[in-house]
């Protein structure tokens, strides 16, 4: 029998996997990749 906390943990894990899948499906991973391979002007202080 799973405890209440264990159920919450399982639900969080399931939600996380679903969110990653949904986000990747609608193209967010591509946006992350495009930003991450180029110099981030804001990050380095160019603006």
């Amino acid at each position: 029998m799973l405890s209440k906390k264990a159920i919450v943990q399982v639900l969080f894990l399931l939600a996380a996997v679903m969110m990653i899948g949904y986000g990747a499906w609608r193209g967010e991973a591509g946006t992350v990749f495009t930003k991450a391979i180029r110099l981030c002007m804001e990050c380095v202080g160019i603006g």
Partner: protein
Amino acid sequence: MDKNRSHFLVRFRGLIQAGAALLTNIHLPNFLKGTLYQGKGKYLCVPGLNCYSCPGAAGACPIGAFQAVVGSSKFRFSYYVTGILILLGVLLGRFICGFLCPFGWLQELLHKIPSPKLSTRRLKPLRYIKYAVLLIMVVLLPAVIVNTSGMGDPFFCKYLCPQGVLEGAIPLSLTNAGIRAALGKLFSWKFCILLAVVVGSVVFYRPFCKWLCPLGAVYALMNHVSLFQMRVDRDTCVSCGACAKACPMDVDITRTPNHAECIRCGKCIKSCPTKAICYQYGFGDKSKTEIKEN
């Protein structure tokens, strides 16, 4: 996880931190070339605060990635990055801060510099600033304040994060004259923040993690439901208070083993005279917090 394994982890924490920092920035030749890694690893987020404009960065910074998505013209929220953060938070919680974050490790190294050390016990309310940074600078502003193309700035990366200067601007400007020439007032501002964090880290333990880090805030929220937990054995605990005294994050582990501020550094495990504290990993509540009243 048994007590021996817990002590093993604590004993080799410094090495694990060094290894994690190296793996997070494994593309070392790029530091000499002044270029960024552009492989598929950058589809994924690294667990710690690590700028993706660092020449050696193996993956994307989760906080930068989140802002890149919400600040783009196509999206107003990032399910992808939020999912990764929840996954990492449930699997490891703030163990990431204590063992895997390169910027946390740097602050710890700086704190080893001999100098008068100041306690942060009376500064506990400052801990809440990092939640405001997360909500306002990471989630809201990039999505709300947008230009005519519908794109928002990564406010945290642009105005507050010292990692971009340390890992991006400094190494890149050393090898690239174009970048060096382009650095202006914004760089100066961020360099001052970096300097403040460096000096602050010498006298305070991990000031950026405690008060400002939005990634630490996310993992802090997840610490309560993380599979990686602390366990206090109530039968062997003698309530001596040594653990609370040793805790650099100002947590009393016997009262709240899964406190949001606990980064699983293991100083309490080391300090316990009866070996009553250890790490636990698994589903359900492993903490067993109740201690005997004397």
